[in-house]
């Protein structure tokens, strides 16, 4: 390379070296790495020298990195001898001497809440960065929370997973692998919430336990096919659009994913209610669950009333109208009991109404689900035939 080219080449090299993270980015990344290191401690045992790497076990140079950092107990770090920069000691000296550590700590505090990178934050299951979002960013955030706040955060995570499943379903990107992954994640979140609920019940904080379990159950709202399909059909009707079968099939896919966790959350809520009922007092807690049940039954009855296809009813059960009438009667009775402040009894009556409406919804749900699957299969078959015809013509 001649002199001119050499000059340009070295200029390019020097200029390249100027590129780096901004201070803010460094702090943001440092926060994540620091929290991760804290949460995932060294797995080698200090008390068991046989498990710890030692100078005699490796072909690493003589300098012990831990000793280089000022440690004198003779322990050997997992990070080999040559890993430590020659500037390590002087960096540490400056780090401590000039209060850089304190400054960094203040900056970290300042930037707490700024979150990690946008790319990971917006990632979806199947993306390269998604595990960072779920296993690092969210876990780090959860690690800083405790008590009801942590449970609420886990409920929020459930909501996120459901939303992600819906987004991917709409984009037709829900592979079996992704479905399984989201399902496992949902179960993990629900298990964590259930643990917290058990702890709250143990402490006698039944009302908090109930409220969290109700939020958990509601975080699935719109994912269950009955409500989601009804919502989609109503929206399309209002917008004057034709609902595509594949869109309904996507909702169906989401239901498959959430089914297990949803059932667990329903059971958790029922358990919380039973804990309150077992107290056998018409106090605030009983009022809370009775009022909540009243709202739930009201919603269910509305949903059944507004069911988009009357034909569906006939296919399920010819006595459906009769069953709805019974549920409505129980609902009105419960309403009266609520007004009379007989909360325990009101809850029991409303719960009976709820059981009836739930059964109706489930039956509608199964029927719709079958219809959607059949229609989707027919549509896909027609599409395949069309493509085959087109290709044979070409």
């Amino acid at each position, binding site marked *: *390379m001649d002199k001119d080219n050499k000059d340009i080449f070295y200029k390019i090299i*020097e200029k390249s070296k*100027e*590129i*780096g993270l901004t201070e803010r980015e460094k702090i943001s990344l440092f926060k994540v790495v620091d929290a991760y290191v804290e949460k995932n401690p060294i797995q080698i045992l200090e008390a068991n020298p046989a498990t710890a790497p030692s100078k005699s076990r*490796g072909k690493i140079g003589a300098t012990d990195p831990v000793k280089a950092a000022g440690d004198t107990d003779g*322990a050997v770090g997992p990070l080999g001898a040559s890993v430590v920069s020659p500037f390590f000691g002087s960096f540490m000296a400056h780090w401590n001497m000039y209060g850089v550590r304190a400054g960094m700590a203040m900056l970290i505090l300042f930037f707490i809440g700024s979150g990690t990178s946008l790319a990971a934050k917006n990632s979806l299951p199947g*993306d390269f960065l998604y595990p*960072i979002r779920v296993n690092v960013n969210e876990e780090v955030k959860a690690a800083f929370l405790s008590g009801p706040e942590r449970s609420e955060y886990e409920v929020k995570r459930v909501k996120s997973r459901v939303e992600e499943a819906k987004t991917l379903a709409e984009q037709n990107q829900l592979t079996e692998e992704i479905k399984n992954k989201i399902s496992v994640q949902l179960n993990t979140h629900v298990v964590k919430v259930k643990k917290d609920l058990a702890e709250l019940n143990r402490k006698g904080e039944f009302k908090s336990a109930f409220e969290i379990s109700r939020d958990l159950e509601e975080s699935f709202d719109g994912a269950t096919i009955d409500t989601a399909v009804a919502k989609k059909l109503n929206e399309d009707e209002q917008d004057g659009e034709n609902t595509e079968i594949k869109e309904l099939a996507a909702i169906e896919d989401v239901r498959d994913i959430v089914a297990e966790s949803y059932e667990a959350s329903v059971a958790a809520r029922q358990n919380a209610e039973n804990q309150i009922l077992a107290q056998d007092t018409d106090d605030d807690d009983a009022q809370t669950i009775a009022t909540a049940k009243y709202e739930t039954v009201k919603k269910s009855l509305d949903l059944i009333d507004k069911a988009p296809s009357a034909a569906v009813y006939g296919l399920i059960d010819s006595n459906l109208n009769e069953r709805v009438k019974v549920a409505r009667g129980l609902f009105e009775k419960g309403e009266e009991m609520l007004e009379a402040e007989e909360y325990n009894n009101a809850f029991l009556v409303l719960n009976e109404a709820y059981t009836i409406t739930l059964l109706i919804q489930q039956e509608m749900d199964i029927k719709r689900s079958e219809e959607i699957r059949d229609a989707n299969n027919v549509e896909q078959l027609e599409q395949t035939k069309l493509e085959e015809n087109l290709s044979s013509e070409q």
Partner: protein
Amino acid sequence: MDTDFKQQFLDIYKQNADAIFRYCLMRVSDRELAKDIAQETFLKVWQYASKGEKIANLRAFLFTTAKNLIIDQYRKKKLTSLDNMMEQGFDVGVEIDQSLFDKIDGQRALAFIGSIPEKYRDAIYMQYVEGLSVKEIAEVTGETENNISVRIHRGLQKLRSILREQNGYG
């Protein structure tokens, strides 16, 4: 002991974060993605080290991990080509106190190195920008030291022809 290891690792992070990020940026040409891969690189290395696995040369190990993560990313998604990046420019997030001239120059410089044919790019970049030895580059790339030396030599020749074409030098 645990605290010392942690502190040691965090210090290593501070010393190498820029270099790993820069390498990722050179390869993927997307600042957000480069940050995420750099972050994941350090987490993976800690995962490995925290199990008591010995790492002979941490700097080489960091680059190897980053390189593998980038390859994974390439397998999953087709990344923006460097040609596009050079045409459109890309966000390098240079500090405010740097002049606009510096920003453009640093960005172009990194993009220029990134545009060297893949075979020579890592060898040239790691030796000249990051100061890795031939032995270390061989460790990162999984090639022999001889091959790396040849690649650096040929890479420089290639650069010469690129510069000649672009600037009329040589």
